[in-house]
Structures are given as C-alpha cells and as structure tokens.
C-alpha cells in the first residue's frame, strides 16, 4: 500500500497543508486564507489537501506540524519550527539553494542552508511586522488598491521617495503624508517596496549572503517584491511555483523521514501536541514518535519533485 504523509503549516494568516508520497513527491497541497491563526482554517486546509490526494485521515502514515499554530494541530507526531521546515521544503523544491528568504504574513526570515539542505544559520524580524506580508496589506489599503494590483503599480514607479519608518503603523502615516503631498501612488508603492527590500537585506546581513537565493512565503507572489529584493541583493532570486507551501512541504518530508523510527526520549516541541487526539490517526500499532535527529538529518536533494521554479533577475 502506498504511504502518504501530511505536513501542516499553520501560519499567522494562512493555513497550508501538503500530502506527499513515500518518495517525497507532492500529491496534493492547499492554502487557506485566515483572519488569524485558526483551528478551523487549519482543518479546511487539511480537508482540501486530503480530498485532492483522494484519501482520508485514516490513510496517513505520518503528520508533522509547523508554524505559529503548530500546537493546535492534533494528531501530529511532532512539531518542528518554521525555520527547519522552510529550509527543508525549499531545499527539496530548489536543490542547491543556499539562502532561503521567507516572508510570511507576520514575520520574515533569512535562513542559510548547507549543500545538503540543512539549516546553518537564521535570522528573523523580532518585534514588529516590518517587511512582512502585513506591511504590504497596509500599503495596499493606504493606496486604495487591491493587493494583487500592488506589484504592477510598484513596477510603474520611478522616483525613490524616502520612506524611513519600518513600523507598519507609522509607515501608513508616512504613506498618507506622501499622498497628501500629491506624490504619485506608483512612486510611493515602488519606494515602499525598495524600503522593504532594504529591510530584508539587513536580515540577510545577519546570516551572510549566499547564492542561489530562493524567496518563499506569500510575499514571493508579489513580482515587484521579488524584483526589488533581487535588485537589493544584487543577484537573481528564484521563486518556487507555490512559494507559500514550502513550510508545509518541509513538514511533510520530515513526517516521511521520521515515520517508523523509534523514540529516543522527550524532544523539543514534543510536549506541544495533544497526542491523545486522533484527528489524523496512523496505522494501528505504528509508533509515531521519532528521535531528536529524525527528519532533519537526511539530505534534501534525494526527493523527487515535479515542481518548477522561476528566477527573477535583478
């Protein structure tokens, strides 16, 4: 019988779920927009992925959860941090990647990975929504455009205006002030994108620039954000076809790699999950625990993928 593994990434604004087979090939994936971390949103994402894979929860051989809401995912064999999962998933999608920049709804991360796709170093924004998806939402609202229109607007901008504040709240005030001065929305949009890219560059500086660079997370769908980031980094920036699911995919790979391994005592994060809730029960008698090294030690390049990436040149 073919084995199936589930990875769930319950982020701050979206829930993602990925089902893989025993070779790490993605069979199904879903992304559900939420207002905030929500168990209901997580369940919808899981249900959609399972339906697409044509299985029920009973057919799963392992589940790993990640993201802000990882503790809310019942039945997961264990949890991993987003750092580990994004690195793992991205390295599998884009073999050879050395720097992963993940920009989600509420936080941004720069992660360096070694040639085997394992985490070497990471840095995260630490106290506000600066340079995150939330920041772009604030920008779109202030410019009275749809989030999907923001990239085209920014690409039309030519002037580099000073946008100094990186606090989402104060930046909105700054944007309103620029609008009140009669400056074109396109110039404001491009300037904010540049400012965010510069902010991300500071994050990269903490871990050291490596190439190839891959941008993941919801913000990677914003072509202008990718363009300005590539410009700031001075190098090409690749984007996977589905940049939002890298964390969930990494979690699924970790579930796959750890399935069936014996436990080795209490593990980080293992106390997060209510193991008694059989939402995603595995086969009877299968030990779902894993030791502390499982899942993160296996090289990522061995996984077969059908995913494509696109590269954006500075």
């Amino acid at each position: 019988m073919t084995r199936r593994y589930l990875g769930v990434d319950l982020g701050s604004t979206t829930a993602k779920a990925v089902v893989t087979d025993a070779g790490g090939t993605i069979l199904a994936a879903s992304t559900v927009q939420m207002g905030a971390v929500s168990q209901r949103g997580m369940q919808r994402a899981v249900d959609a992925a399972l339906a697409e894979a044509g299985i029920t929860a009973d057919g799963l051989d392992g589940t790993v959860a990640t993201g802000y809401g990882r503790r809310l995912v019942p039945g997961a064999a264990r949890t991993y941090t987003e750092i580990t999962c994004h690195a793992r998933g991205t390295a599998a999608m884009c073999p050879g990647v050395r720097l992963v920049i993940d920009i989600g709804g509420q936080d941004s991360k720069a992660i360096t990975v070694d040639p085997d796709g394992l985490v070497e170093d990471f840095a995260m924004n630490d106290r506000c929504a600066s340079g995150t998806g939330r920041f772009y939402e604030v920008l779109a609202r202030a410019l009275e455009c749809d989030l999907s229109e923001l990239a085209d607007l920014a690409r039309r901008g030519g002037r580099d205006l000073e946008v100094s504040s990186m606090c989402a709240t104060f930046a909105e005030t700054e944007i309103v002030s620029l609008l009140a001065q009669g400056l074109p929305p396109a110039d404001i949009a491009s300037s904010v994108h540049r400012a965010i890219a510069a902010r991300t560059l500071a994050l990269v500086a903490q871990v050291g620039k490596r190439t190839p660079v891959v941008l993941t997370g919801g913000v990677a769908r914003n072509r202008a954000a990718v363009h300005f980031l590539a410009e700031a980094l001075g190098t090409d920036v690749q984007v996977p076809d589905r940049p939002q699911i890298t964390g969930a995919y990494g979690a699924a790979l970790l579930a796959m790699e750890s399935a069936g391994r014996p436990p080795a005592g209490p593990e980080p994060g293992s106390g997060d999950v209510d193991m008694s809730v059989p939402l995603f029960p595995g086969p009877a008698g299968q030990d779902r625990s894993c030791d502390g090294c499982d899942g993160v030690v296996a090289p990522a390049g061995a996984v077969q993928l059908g995913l494509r990436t696109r590269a954006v040149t500075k």
Partner: protein
Amino acid sequence: MDATQDRSNRLSVTRAGGQLITDYWDDLFQAREQGKQIVWYNGGALNPIFQAAGLAWCHGEAFAARLAAQRLEGPAQLAGAEYGYNAELCSYARTHLGCSVLTLGNQGHKLAGDEGEHSGVVGINDSAELAARLPFPDFFVNNYAGCSTGQQWDGISFRVFGKQLPIFNISHPFLWGNKPDAGYLRGEEWESASRYVAGQLRELISFLEAQTGRPFDYDALSQAMTYIKRAAELRREGLDLCRAKPAPATFWDWIACVAPINFLPGDQALVDYFAGVRDEIAERLAAGVSGVRDEKYRLYFDGIMNWNKLGFLSRKFAEHGAAVLCGRYIHNAFWQEPQLIDTADPILGMAQHYLLCPTNHGTKTLDYLTLRDCRDYDVDGIVFHSTRTCRAFTGPQRLLAKSAQDKLGIPSIFFEGDVADASFYKEEILESRLAAMLEAIDVRRARGGQLAGAFSS
C-alpha cells in the same frame, strides 16, 4: 506550559536564601525606627563598607529586581513614568525612581517640583504599598561601572529628593583592554584603574565618617570581607561543580543566589548559606541528581536576568531538556574573583571587583570570558537575552555571538526581554528561536561534528 511537564529541579537550599532576603528588607524598612542612618546606592557591592560604618543600606537595583520578581513593579514604574521617565529608561532605574516618588509621597513630602508633580495617577493600587516602604535616605552613593544610566541614576534620585541630601559619586574607568599589555586582571590599565578606584573608596570612607560623625571601623570592614570572601569561594566551588554532566544545578539556581552575594551583610549566616548551596550541589553530584531532568542540551545565557520570568524561564528551558549552566551575569559578577581580596586590607580587592562589573569590559575581555566559560561548561549553544533597557549589557552581544560561532562553532539565538518590564518579552520569539536552535544542534550531533555556521537570530 503544563506544570506536569516541569522538568526543572531547582535547589531546595535557595529557599533559605529567600528568607534571608525577606528578613533583610524587613529590617531595612524598620531601619529609621531603629535609629540607623540610611544610604541609598547603586552599582557595585559597597555594602561591606556601609556595614562597617554602621549604616543601613538600600541597593536600588536590588529593590527594583525584588519588586519585579514579585510582579509588584507596576505601581513604582507608573510613578516613575508620571515623574517623567518613560519605558525606554533602564527599568531598574525607572522602578527605583518610582519608589523614590512613592517614598516621598508616603511620608508626606512634596516632590522637588523641578521635573514634575503628582497627578494623582500613582498610589491607586494597593501594591504600591511595598514600593513605597523604602525608608527615606540620609544620603546617596553611586558606584556604577560601565553604564551611563547607572552612573546618573543616583543623581536623579538626588534631584527627586530636592537636592537637599549629600551624594558621593565613584568614577570607574572603562577597561578597554586595548593596550599591548592588557588582559583580564593584568596590565597597566588594570593596575592603574584599580588604584584609582581604591583611592576613591578611601575618600568615600572619609565622606561616611563625616556623615556618621564616627571614625570608620576598618577592623569591622576586614571582618565583613572575610565572611564575604569565604562565601564567594564557596559560590565559586559550587559553580565549578556544575561543569559535571549532567549538571547538578543550573543558571537559574545561581540567579536565586544573586541577592545574597550582592547585598546581604558579611557575616556567618552568609557563609552558612553558600556552604549549604555548595553542599547540596555536591550531594546531588554524588547521588547523580541533575538540575534538569534528562539533560539533553547545555546552554550559556548572556544577559541580565528577566526577573519577572525566573520560574517561567527555568521551566521553559527544562521543558526542552536544556540545562542553562553559565552566563556573564553569574560567572563574571558578584565577588567572582575572591583571590583578589586581601582580608587584612580589602580596599584594593574591593575596588577591583567594582571594576569587574560585566558591563565594564571591552569586547576583547568579554570574548575571552565568554569563550572560556563556553569551553569549561562544554555548552552546545548560547541564548542572548537582549535586554531592552540595558544597552550596556546588550551592546557587545552580536560580536560575542559571532566570535562563539567562528571560534567554537557554537550557535546562538537572541530574544528580547527586560530586567524589570515584562512587556518587552515575547513568548513566541524565544520559543521559535530556541526550538530551531535545538533542532539544529540535533543535526550537528547526528553528523558528529560542528555546524559550519551558527545562528544569528
């Protein structure tokens, strides 16, 4: 965290220290009624000098930490804010300045008026009672090294009390450590700075003689320092025992020992306390009892304590199987080099300890000390508490992280918090970074070697 998952195993003897501290503060609250003169001070541990001078002493920083540890800092901080000091000021100072305001108000005094007046906001909470119980000072002494806020702190208190009370300031040269012969505890910079501070301590003693109207009792100082030196030696012995694997006690136990070594009187009770700590650790070692059940990771903690979070952090790290073993605040402060103290003539050794404040070294020395302790305790990673309102402590942290990464291959994480203001602490920030670092330590172990790089988050 679920209490049933608590894997921490704190020393039982530190509870005795808690009682000593409670008794100390209760005595201080009654000092005026007992006819004692009272000195308010901050910075290095001048208490043996005050003890020998027959004074009662209030270490402002320590009282702020105590309020924070009891989660009673709010009213004092509100009073400090009302007086004009906002949340970016050192929260120790903000809390203690608030205590000054409350102490004045509690005793019917009017504020100096040059920087603010009561608005009526403060004093609305019953918990203000403790913050307001500090006895009115007779004078101030400042003994702060390596922190510009600390050096001005008692000057601000001086203004709060209407510039009517005497104040004595001791100046400490920063130990840059950049001369050719400079090193930890050696070199001309060290020798000359030690003599300079020792000279000021002698001037302080003259100042105290003028304030008390009594000749200073040098024999009493020698006696107090004899007890303190012995207590410090016992503390060092206990710290050294914690190099064992698994460690019999943790950083959090030593945090609980800060108050006794920092400001309790030098007497037999202090020695007995640290003998008890050392003995319990030795007993645990013999019995194979560890400070964290199933120790899996060994960590270094850099940063001043987040006093509102002592128990929480102790349980949190233990939950991950992480034994926090050593740190700058514990290993490089509080009479940490007792061999420097000549009990017959302790002034020079005391001056040297005031210079050895962990915020008073250049990065070269901090780098030496940090890497030394990381090696000695065989740590797997460093957790940097980026103390929001203590930039003197946090300033060199990125350099230390990079050095540990480059020279020892030891990863680091950073989290923001504060000494006495819990609002700067974000649980998810520490949790996600800690878990990620531990995951990658697992990777390193599985590979049987060091990570090529380390974490900078």
